[in-house]
């Protein structure tokens, strides 16, 4: 394992891989820092640029975006009090307060180094567990895979904020889209209505870009009332100079907090559906609970920043484990990452580690290297990022839309896919306006084919449907699916009064 990892790191240090990794990390940090531009959106925008690259170059760039984006959100969270990404929300609680207390450099670098340490610890977990988990998954038959995918979907559906029913409907919308085109076993055309274009079904990428990009862009546009709507207020550039060793010492002097927050981030990353924003808020909450002086949280203390940032970057490592070992995306960002892998010809899942070991270790190496690169990017560019967030949205919106269009078009060099993008753009915006969660749609889109293939394979092996509930692992996973939905219903009922009192929040893309 270590030999393969060492070789992969040396490979990645070659200029042809290092350049996409550095550019990806840089773009990720910028995208993460821009309020209103999420990591998902940044990955979507970068994805078409990787079409012409070889798989490892492309995946190095995407991994860089993912890692950079997870850390980038903290720049504006700390310096402007506006989280660049939802996963940096908890960083504002103490980060921005510390900045207002006159310590912007300390607040920023505590966040950056905590991100780095949390991410690297997440990397150790990623490397150590992906192989063994994939080996377990290799023992799965179609019954277990079917049950696993249903479990993933039920987790996403169960965790939707507004309504379980809407989560369920959103999930079935996603599954439904995958039934268009030829059926995956016998290639019988379904719902094609005589059109040649629909014979191949809807390509995943234009659908995904349409739903997410438009939902987000249009939601931003509807908030604008005549004006350029710059991403953030132009702030006086603060002094960010700080003794780095002192900041590192501050973090390492709190090993329990760092390890605990990282563990929370990892666990939430591994579990489907929860995502980085919940990871950072939960780690912050946990840090407060284990603290001897919880009343100091929110007054600008390092613990708050360390908990939030180490957790949201460790979350990336956890999410990658689930993608690489099982082929299940944890949230929207990982769904796009999974889509990126598919576009580069990689079928992620348990066989990936065996059949594409070089590529898998390449991703590990890219993940590990992206962290020091992120530190360098931050050191050189933190002041620049503050200026970037003032780019007017009037310029940003059309540029992002053009890149989305090119991404959809370049997939198969056909304008039909651009129409699919537009169609699902309207659909995605309608879903957001009707308060349907988008994560179940995306998970349904990704898992739809696999659910069907495994269902059919299982029944072709043995037509007895009871095997789904008599094979132990399958039964356990299906039982967990039911339990997660029931738990969600119970929790919803219990918290109904409190949820009703909460102010409405923006959709977490």
């Amino acid at each position, binding site marked *: 394992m270590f030999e393969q990892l060492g070789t992969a790191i040396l490979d990645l240090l070659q200029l042809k891989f290092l350049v996409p990794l550095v550019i990806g990390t840089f773009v990720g940090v910028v995208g993460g820092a821009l309020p209103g531009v999420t990591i998902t959106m940044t990955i979507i925008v970068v994805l*078409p*640029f990787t*079409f*012409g690259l070889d798989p490892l170059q492309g995946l190095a760039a995407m991994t860089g975006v993912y890692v950079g984006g997870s850390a980038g959100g903290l720049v504006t969270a700390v310096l402007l009090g506006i989280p660049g990404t939802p996963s940096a929300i908890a960083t504002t609680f103490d980060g921005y307060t510390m900045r207002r207390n006159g310590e912007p450099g300390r607040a920023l670098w505590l966040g950056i180094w905590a991100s780095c340490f949390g991410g690297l610890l997440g990397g150790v977990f990623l490397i150590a567990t992906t192989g063994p988990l994939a080996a377990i998954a290799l023992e799965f038959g179609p019954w277990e895979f079917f049950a696993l995918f249903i479990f993933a979907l039920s987790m996403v559906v169960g965790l939707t904020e507004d*309504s379980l*029913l*809407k989560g*369920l*409907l959103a999930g*079935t*919308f996603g599954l*439904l889209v995958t*039934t268009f085109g030829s*059926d995956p*076993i*016998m290639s*019988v055309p*379904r*719902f094609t209505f005589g059109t040649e274009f629909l014979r191949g079904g809807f390509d995943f990428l234009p659908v995904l870009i349409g739903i997410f990009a438009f939902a987000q862009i*249009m939601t931003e*546009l*509807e*908030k*604008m*009332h*005549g004006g*350029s*709507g710059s991403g953030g207020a132009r702030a006086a550039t603060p002094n960010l100079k700080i003794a780095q060793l002192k900041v590192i010492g501050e973090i390492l002097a709190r090993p329990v907090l760092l390890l605990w927050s990282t563990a929370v981030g990892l666990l939430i990353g591994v579990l489907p559906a929860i995502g980085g924003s919940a990871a950072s808020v939960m780690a912050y909450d946990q840090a407060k609970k284990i603290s001897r002086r919880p009343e100091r949280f929110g007054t600008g203390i390092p613990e708050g920043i360390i908990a939030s940032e180490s957790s949201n970057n460790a979350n990336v490592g956890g999410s990658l484990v689930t993608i690489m070992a099982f082929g299940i995306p944890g949230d929207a960002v990982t769904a796009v990452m999974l889509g990126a892998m598919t576009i580069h010809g990689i079928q992620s899942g348990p066989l990936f580690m065996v059949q594409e070991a070089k590529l898998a270790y390449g991703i590990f190496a890219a993940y590990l290297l992206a962290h020091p690169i992120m530190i360098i990017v931050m050191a050189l560019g933190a002041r620049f990022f503050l200026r970037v967030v003032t780019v*007017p949205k*009037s*310029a940003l*919106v*059309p*540029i992002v*839309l*053009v890149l989305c*269009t*090119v991404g959809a*078009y*370049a997939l198969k*060099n056909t*304008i039909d896919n*651009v*129409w699919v993008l*537009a169609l699902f*753009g*309207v659909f995605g*915006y309608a879903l957001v*306006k*009707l*308060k349907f969660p988008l994560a179940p749609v995306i998970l349904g889109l990704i898992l739809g084919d696999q*659910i*069907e293939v495994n*269902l*059919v394979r299982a*029944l*072709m092996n043995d*037509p007895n449907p009871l095997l789904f509930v008599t094979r132990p692992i399958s039964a356990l996973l299906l039982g967990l699916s039911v339990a997660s939905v029931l738990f969600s219903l119970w929790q919803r009922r219990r918290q109904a009064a409190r949820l009703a009192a909460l*102010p*409405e929040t923006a959709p977490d893309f």
Partner: protein
Amino acid sequence: MRGFVRPRLTGDAVAGLVAVSVSVWLFFVAGDLPQSALVPIGPGFYPRLVLGATALAGAALVLRAFLVGSGAPAAGPAPNYRLVLVAFVLFGLYVTLLPLLGFRIATFLFVAAMQSAIDPPRTRRALLVVTLVALGTTAVTYLVFERYLYVLLPRGTWTDF
């Protein structure tokens, strides 16, 4: 009749009704799919399973919307739906014109029009910025994708450009 609340056709109810109608229609379409001797459940089985679940969830949503309502409307300033509509229309025009005018002309026009719709240029300087952003976006995207990533972007049937 005091206390009687007349059911309103809320967003949830409409969404549920659309889900039910579309899934029932597709459910019957899927029933006409040919069966295979090799596969025990046939190509229509899985879609019908999903469509059945969609129809049930949709119906439950309609019922809930009529019985409970859809919750209070969001507070805060009214959304600028006019701008959203303009953005969708401009994007629709862009997609329509892409194969006719070609990527370079259509993209330049789209980026310029979109910027003007979001923040209308009122000074010469603003107009210059709009033009430069449109030109820059078109040129950079074209060069990167065509020259370095070997993606052949659409040429216009009207303009041959």
